């Protein structure tokens, strides 16, 4: 039992937190701007490298400098929106999709140019599990990830339900024409979407870097599970993205558990396929996703 919790369920939840934070941005962009943003993973990478630079400069813990990196990345994202996405706002969505694909390659190449392609460590060395939690094996950094995710989720929830801009975002996501008719400033909603999506992506990236390491391809590696999470949860539904991320993270890890006998139920080499199998089944049986998102 303890083995299942420590080595299969908790790692799955941690992975789920990271997927969930990343998937929110994808889901919102899809809901509000109506296109799949392939540059999302590399927005994450940009934020991680900015955080890393601050860590090098100040020697502070990555989580302390993360808010600054989130702000800078969100600011950069607003600039990129102006340059690459705004001209296509009235065009068919495929134009924006292609633009985002180009932007993805540009961001990654820029990061590789300025920071190099070497693998870096956000936090060096190995952390032992915390003693006071025995027999649960959780490390300090994992508590940070869990706690950080909860805080960000609550903040997002408050933003979407209690503030005017949050309500406007949900309105545009539900019905853009109606929202525009009621006098909602769509351009401001778009900006808020980029800021929220980019900030959460940076958090996901920094959490991932705390758990693993920093590399220029980390965003691209995360892109597919994040998309799967967004679709699973229901496109345009931030809470759905959270749920979808959790489901995919947990299923990926738990599928390797030896449920029957002593060998893994599924060869772990194929666990990436699990996320997609779930996604495909979902698209067939319930295309609106877990939380009744938009259908395409």
């Amino acid at each position, binding site marked *: 039992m303890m083995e299942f919790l420590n080595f299969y369920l908790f790692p799955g939840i941690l992975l789920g937190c990271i997927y969930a934070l990343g998937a929110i941005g994808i889901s919102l962009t899809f809901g509000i701007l109506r296109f799949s943003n392939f540059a999302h993973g590399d927005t994450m990478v940009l934020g991680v490298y900015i955080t890393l630079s601050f860590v090098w400069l100040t020697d502070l813990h990555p989580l302390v400098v993360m808010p600054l990196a989130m702000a800078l990345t969100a600011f950069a994202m607003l600039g990129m929106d102006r340059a690459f996405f705004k001209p296509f706002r009235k065009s068919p969505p495929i134009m924006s999709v292609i633009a985002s694909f180009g932007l993805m390659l540009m961001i990654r190449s820029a990061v590789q140019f300025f920071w190099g392609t070497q693998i870096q460590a956000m936090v060096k060395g190995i952390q032992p599990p915390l003693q006071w939690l025995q027999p649960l094996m959780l490390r300090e950094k994992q508590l940070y990830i869990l706690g950080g995710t909860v805080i960000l989720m609550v903040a997002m929830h408050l933003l979407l339900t209690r503030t005017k801009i949050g309500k406007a975002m949900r309105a545009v996501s539900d019905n853009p024409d109606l929202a525009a008719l009621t006098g909602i400033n769509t351009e401001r909603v778009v900006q808020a979407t980029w800021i929220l999506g980019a900030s959460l992506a940076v958090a996901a990236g920094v959490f991932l870097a705390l758990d693993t390491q920093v590399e220029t391809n980390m965003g691209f590696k995360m892109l597919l599970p994040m998309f799967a999470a967004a679709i699973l949860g229901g496109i345009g539904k931030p809470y759905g993205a959270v749920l979808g991320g959790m489901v995919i993270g947990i299923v990926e890890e738990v599928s390797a558990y*030896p449920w029957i006998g002593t060998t893994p139920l599924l060869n772990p080499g194929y666990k990436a396929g699990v996320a997609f199998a779930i996604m495909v089944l979902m698209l067939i049986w319930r295309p609106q996703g877990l939380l009744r998102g938009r259908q395409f």
Partner: protein
Amino acid sequence: MKKFLATAAVAGLAAAPALADDIKIGSVAGATGPIAELVAPILAGRNLAAEHVNAQGGLLGGNNMVLILADSQCDPKAGVDAGQKVVSVEQVVAVIGASCSGATNGMVQSVTIPAGIMSISDSATAPSITDLKDNDLVFRTAPSDAYQGAALAKLAWDAGYRKLAVTYSNDDYNAGIAEVFAASFQELGGEITANQLHEPNKASYRAEITTLSAGGPEGLALFAYYGGSGITIIRNSLETGAFGKFLAADGMFDASVIETIGAENLVGNLMITQSASDPENASYQLFAELYADSGFDPAAPYAAHGYDAAFLVALAIQKAGSADPALLPAALRDVANAPGEIIRPGEWEKAVALLAEGKDINYEGASGPVDFDAAGDVAGFYSVNTVGDDGQYVMDYIR
């Protein structure tokens, strides 16, 4: 009349002597991706060879040897794209690369073999490349892992390991060497408690590792690229306490393993074999001196092999007397294998002079004698690397 003019123009072009022209050679490598750090010194080796050729008179009496770089990202799909770029767009006469075995397999099968272009890889080591139906077009200066896997198994056995778990990344190189390793280790009398592939590029391997650790293995034989899954697996293993000792091959040989995991966790616990150059070899010593300006360590994995691959392509073109791709494979065997007067790294002028006199030459490379067998493979020489107290790798040669 029009047609006549056109024909004449084409004929004129074909007959024009190739004076001080560029001769393009593809240089396909995983410049980005999971082994980017390993590729930089290899590219420096290739480029150095081209510099030597161009500084000492060039190819075929004054033509520039130009290496056209294309990024294979250590990925089969990207390898095919990179091959297409250099072969179809740039019209190269031969290709060096691609770096990783998967990328190389993809590139040669989809691009260079169908196009009749010779390729020499300087770091693709998968045993599967030996058996390709390649019309004698695929060569490599990197030895097949059929040797390295066995060498690592022997080392593990001699170091006292009797029960090991094996995991390998789902790609040509790692699957190939894991298979050889497991078979060799069992032949020696060792027990493989689990042998499981894993998907690279995942954020966590805790579940896989826990499953692998069943059955009481004394260590983990980890076949992966450090940037794909290797570092994450070592980190997750140490964190969960599933494994403390690791055996690995050259896909893991990078300083970032020590930097990210911390030397204190790896001293005495990590053993990495690597295809090395014999430091007592006169050719290697010559190369090391010439390579020093590049800013990289001449003992970096496959840097010497990269130099040899590029230098051999140049020698083959010179020997063939033209840059016709069809003539190159035979010419390559001629200049690389005995008999003939020995040519060492940097000795381009000497080689050109000997060839002009009609003499046979035998290139003795920085990485070894580079005598190609029937499959286009060379024999291997290996080192074993452990982590020293100062946080650097300590290299011993396996003789």
